[in-house]
């Protein structure tokens, strides 16, 4: 009967039990039409650890206390945890000490909640015309308004973590990009001359004469969309100016050096390090950026291929909406492409991660040493002017160290590039120490 059931199942097309539209945030409602996807979506509450990742929200500061020194003077030195499933994104933001010890803006919600309706409501109140025709205008305007709000106030406008509507068109179920931060950034990126062999639709737009703006939702390939959906949030960002506008710094490209040089030109820093006095940068989950440097991106392998692999349910193939570490799901996530045993695949991934980890520790030690030296030099009374060069080097080292540390694959997404970045971090940190003692 198995085959019989299959034959039947395959014939049964999805049929719409309930109507859904742009205002349907509640995933349970969508789930009536797509029960399989909904079931797996809900499983992101699971918490299972892997060697270097997984979904247990352990305290990273206890795991590697050097980070208390590295983040000194910044909210991250107080509370910094391993990330976990999508189900927790809103509550984890609520409970982190980082939203308590510091006044945060509404911009934080862009990536931690199903925020679209909030944007549209805010825009309507600000006088943007109503109606579906003005939808995009509403979203972009509301985005600006909500970014600038105090976090607590904006928080009352949202109620759900990322939901179906954030990645899907309710009419066609097509995957789409909704986040203003990404929409703006991908246009800037397209305009730059940074080579993007892994994003063919952008290369094509460039070759076709760069007409108008690159429009991701109409121009990207389906395979690209399977990464862009995640690039909406899994990216480096900063809040620009008083309006706390959320910006992804891709104006010069996606490489660690290109982003740094953008920040240098805009004169941005995240905080002044308490001990070293250097105006340093904090990197945040640059998964999309590091993936872009890797062999998988270059081979056209999307985030969803590994983190939402197809799984067979009866005769249906569906995307596993239990977004999680692929190392908890190697058969579906890797074996479609790699014909080795599960244990062999795991060993290969962990070898890459272990290598990254040993370099990461080496880089952490170097940066901590530099911080101590700068602190001692200041205590010793060496004039600020003479420490500038060393502080500059601290900024460079910190940026690179954090780029790999804050990225969540422990180097897997681009193994050689992660090692290269850490090598630079080590070099700059040690050079900084030499600068301090220079006669």
């Amino acid at each position: 009967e198995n085959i019989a059931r299959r034959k039947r199942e395959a014939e049964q097309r999805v049929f719409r039990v309930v109507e859904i539209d742009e205002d349907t945030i509640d995933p349970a409602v969508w789930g009536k039409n797509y029960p399989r996807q909904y079931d797996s979506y809900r499983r992101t509450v699971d918490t299972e650890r892997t060697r270097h990742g997984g979904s247990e929200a352990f305290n990273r500061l206890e795991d590697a206390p050097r980070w208390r020194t590295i983040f000194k003077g910044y909210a991250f030195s107080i509370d910094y945890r391993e990330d976990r499933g999508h189900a927790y994104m809103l509550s984890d933001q609520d409970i982190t000490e980082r939203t308590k010890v510091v006044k945060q803006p509404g911009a934080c919600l862009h990536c931690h909640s199903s925020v679209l309706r909030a944007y549209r409501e805010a825009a309507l109140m600000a006088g943007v015309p109503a109606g579906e025709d003005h939808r995009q205008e509403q979203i972009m305007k509301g985005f600006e308004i909500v970014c600038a709000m105090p976090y607590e106030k904006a928080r009352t406008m949202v109620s759900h973590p990322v939901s179906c509507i954030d990645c899907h068109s309710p009419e066609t179920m097509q995957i789409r990009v909704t986040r203003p931060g990404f929409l703006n950034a991908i246009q800037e990126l397209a305009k730059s001359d940074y080579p993007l062999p892994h994003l063919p639709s952008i290369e094509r737009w460039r070759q076709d004469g760069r007409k108008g703006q690159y429009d991701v939702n109409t121009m990207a390939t389906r395979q690209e969309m399977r990464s862009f959906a995640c690039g909406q949030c899994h990216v480096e960002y900063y809040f620009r100016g008083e309006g706390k506008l959320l910006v992804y710094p891709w104006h010069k490209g996606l490489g660690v050096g290109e982003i740094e040089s953008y920040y240098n030109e805009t004169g941005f820093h995240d905080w002044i390090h308490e001990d070293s006095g250097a105006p340093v940068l904090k990197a945040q989950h640059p998964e999309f950026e590091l993936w872009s440097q890797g062999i998988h991106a270059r081979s056209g392998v999307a985030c969803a291929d590994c983190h939402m692999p197809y799984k067979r349910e009866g005769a249906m193939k569906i995307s596993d909406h239990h977004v999680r570490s692929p190392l908890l799901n190697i058969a579906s996530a890797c074996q479609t492409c790699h014909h080795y045993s599960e244990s062999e695949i795991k060993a290969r991934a962990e070898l890459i991660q272990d290598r990254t980890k040993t370099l990461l520790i080496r880089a952490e030690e170097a940066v901590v040493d530099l911080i101590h030296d700068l602190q001692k030099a200041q205590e010793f009374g060496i004039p600020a002017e003479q420490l500038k060069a060393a502080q500059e080097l601290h900024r460079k080292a910190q940026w690179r160290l954090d780029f790999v540390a804050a990225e969540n694959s422990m180097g897997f997404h681009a193994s050689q590039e992660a090692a290269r970045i850490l090598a630079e971090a080590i070099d700059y940190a040690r050079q900084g120490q030499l600068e301090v003692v220079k006669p």
Partner: protein
Amino acid sequence: MIKEDMRFISNLSFTTLFLLGFLGLFIGLSAYTFYYAQGASYLSNDPKACVNCHIMREQYDGWQKASHHAVATCNDCHIPHEPLSKYVTKLKNGFWHSKSFTFQDFHEPIRIKPQNRTVLQKNCLHCHGEFVSQIATHPGNDRQMLDCIHCHKSVGHGPG
């Protein structure tokens, strides 16, 4: 002590009974699967026979795009060409596939088993034996023979 032995015996007979019943059910089910999935066509040369199980859909699609689409069908590569072992393999595979399919207890994605890999290897030589006579001789023996699909993985089902 005696009680325990008794229990052991009754356990045993229960197990035996269960196993026998199970076997009956199993054969029945498999036969049904075999029939329903147009098992007879399993013995034919038509690639469509293999896609009767939706499970084989991917390999079928891949085969259609692969370089050998015009020159070789599933059986050319996966079934031995020697008369006797041809049917033995067909039956064996047919049985196991039916069994796996019925109980849905196989590893996914499906992976070719070492034994069938050797069959495959022999079949490459069946067509290309002369051509590779300088480089290949002993299918199934890794001391002597290179695995053709170490380099030509994509011939049957395309890249990827």
